[in-house]
């Protein structure tokens, strides 16, 4: 029994770690899509930021510089997306695809040019990355059964970006639902014309939303390279940007529901990893691929309207053309 509990806690702990980039990226997507800009370039922004963060952390010897550099890189890509899809009213999906492919190519080219290694950056030393923090009181609470284990394994012992991720979600909720900017953001995604008529800049609001998204994606990418891992490796984001997109849809563009979706998808990922090669009674060997496929399957089923209905912001994917 104890063993099972411990295993469960370890799996939950692993889910925390893997769902962090999903949280940052899906919150980034939430801002973009709530403003009416579809953002399938989350993956590219995560990848670019992971690479730049790892490079900067390695060159300047500080994770904080890495984090800021990663955020900057991600913002640059977000602005390219904005330039194409807001200013020039291009196809937002095409622009997002361009960003993903560009990030994939540039990271490969630049690792080779800067570090003479194809696809990887130098391994980061301990002081160049974000390390786990042991929360105060672990020793004291450790003696309490169950709660002690939960506190030690689950709550304590993460790096600062993990705690930041869990702080970001309520903040996003507050911004989106309780501030004037949030109201305008939601309005511009539903009915840009009304916002325009009220004398506000549709383009300005959308740019702001993308910029916030750039910052958040930047933190997510930095987490992957300099907190969760200790270097950048080729294609290391491995589709997490797309899972974040799935989580965003699954959570119906609402911060807390999206958080729940991220956690569910993270848990499935951690579970798949833990069940690799495990033979269970009755079922036999667990087909890990099936568990890995669940987030995508669930999203498709949800989109199909079989379990609730995912309705995106009304004006998403439509460039706003001002009538003269």
């Amino acid at each position, binding site marked *: 029994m104890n063993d099972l509990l411990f295993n469960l806690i370890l799996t939950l702990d692993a889910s925390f770690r893997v769902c962090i980039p999903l949280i940052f990226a899906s919150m980034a997507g939430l801002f973009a899509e709530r403003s009416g800009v579809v953002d399938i370039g989350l993956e590219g922004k995560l990848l670019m930021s992971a690479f730049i963060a790892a490079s900067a952390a390695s060159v300047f010897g500080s994770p904080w510089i890495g984090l800021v550099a990663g955020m900057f890189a991600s913002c640059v890509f977000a602005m390219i997306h904005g330039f194409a899809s807001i200013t020039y009213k291009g196809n937002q999906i095409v622009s997002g695809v361009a960003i993903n492919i*560009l990030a994939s190519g540039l990271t490969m080219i630049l690792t080779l040019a800067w570090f003479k290694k194809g696809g990887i950056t130098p391994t980061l030393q301990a002081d160049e990355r974000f390390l786990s923090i042991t929360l105060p009181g672990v020793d004291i609470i450790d003696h309490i059964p169950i709660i002690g284990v939960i506190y030690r394994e689950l709550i304590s012992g993460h790096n600062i970006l993990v705690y930041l991720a869990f702080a970001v979600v309520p903040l996003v909720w507050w911004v989106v639902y309780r501030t004037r900017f949030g109201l305008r953001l939601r309005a511009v995604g539903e009915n840009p014309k009304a916002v325009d008529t009220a004398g506000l800049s549709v383009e300005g609001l959308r740019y702001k939303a993308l910029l916030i998204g750039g910052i958040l994606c930047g933190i997510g990418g930095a987490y992957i390279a300099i907190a969760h891992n200790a270097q950048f490796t080729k294609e290391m984001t491995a589709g997490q940007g797309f899972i974040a997109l799935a989580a965003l849809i699954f959570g119906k563009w609402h911060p807390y529901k999206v958080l729940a979706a991220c956690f569910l998808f993270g848990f499935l990922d951690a579970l798949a990893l833990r069940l690799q090669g495990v033979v269970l009674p009755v079922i036999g060997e667990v087909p890990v691929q099936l568990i890995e496929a669940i987030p995508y399957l669930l999203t498709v089923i949800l989109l199909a309207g079989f379990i609730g209905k995912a309705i995106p912001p009304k004006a998403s994917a439509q460039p706003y053309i001002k009538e003269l």
Partner: protein
Amino acid sequence: MTRDRRLAWINGLLLPLFNVLTAFLATAVVFLFIGVDPIEATKILIYGALGYDEGLGYTLYYATNFVFTGLAVAVAFHAGLFNIGGEGQAYVGGLGIALVALYIDPTLSAWLVIPLAISGGLLFGALWAIIPAYLQAYRGSHIVITTIMFNFLASALMVYMLVHVLREVGQMSPESRNFPEVVWLPFVHDVFARFGYNIAKSPLNLSILVALFFSLLVWFFLWHTRWGFAIRATGKSNDAAVYSGINPKKIIVVTMCISGALAGLVGVNELIGVQHRLFLNFNYGYGFGGIAVALMGRNHPVGILIAALLFGILYQGGAELDFELQNVSRDIVVVMQGLVILFCGGLEYLYRPLLIRFLAPIET
């Protein structure tokens, strides 16, 4: 020239030309940024891709894949659909080809077996596209998102199939056994040798004829059949299509099936053309490359052939760059694909205001 004529020229020729040139220019900037002389790099690239038999063979071999995925994306574009799932459809199409190749009676004639294998690719590619298509048409789920999800599902499915079903007993790497020789498409150098011409060995095989055949077919289908008209009409204006009695839902499903089927042909070149077995990620990057090819080729088969050739040149020339220069790898092609998609797609209207202002100002 009237203003309308001038506008047509701007939209049809000048704008795409400017966009492609900008993408090239931006690539040159990337080269400069990493300390590579872009002119030197271009020379190596072009020599590597076109300068000798073997290079040319490789170029055409890569181009073949891009023709398939480029056509796939283009057909969907004509109906106003963005098929971002070419990657997955190509992958699963490969499974269809492999299943035919592995389980068919190898004593049958190649004239029967090879078309069957090709049909397997068409069928499985179409099957992988039909669910997102149905969901878009009848349940309103956005096809871009569902096809992205289907790319990942394809990936999971193929890993499962290769690890648990098709892998040979005792074999470590996840790949199928070799296909029987009867389904192998002949290499072009072998065909030439049979007629007494010796050309260098390369992976170029008769798939290139399949690619040309399907380009012609797509052209004929889109511009000279009732269905093709219905597809283009739906893409131009959904409402107009409905008024003329076209059922857009049906069109979505049919178009996506055709699109998926075309993407499913990548395996013809890669699997029965070159590798003669099914393995992981044989489709890697061609599905997304197809988007760049379709955008650059303006969704027309002729344009796609030209764009596919260009990307073939870049792929093969990129390999040569890898070899010749230390600072750059063939991934520069990926950068370039991204730039082409950005400038020919996302920023398609970048120069439009400027060109209109100078070449076709509003007459007062």
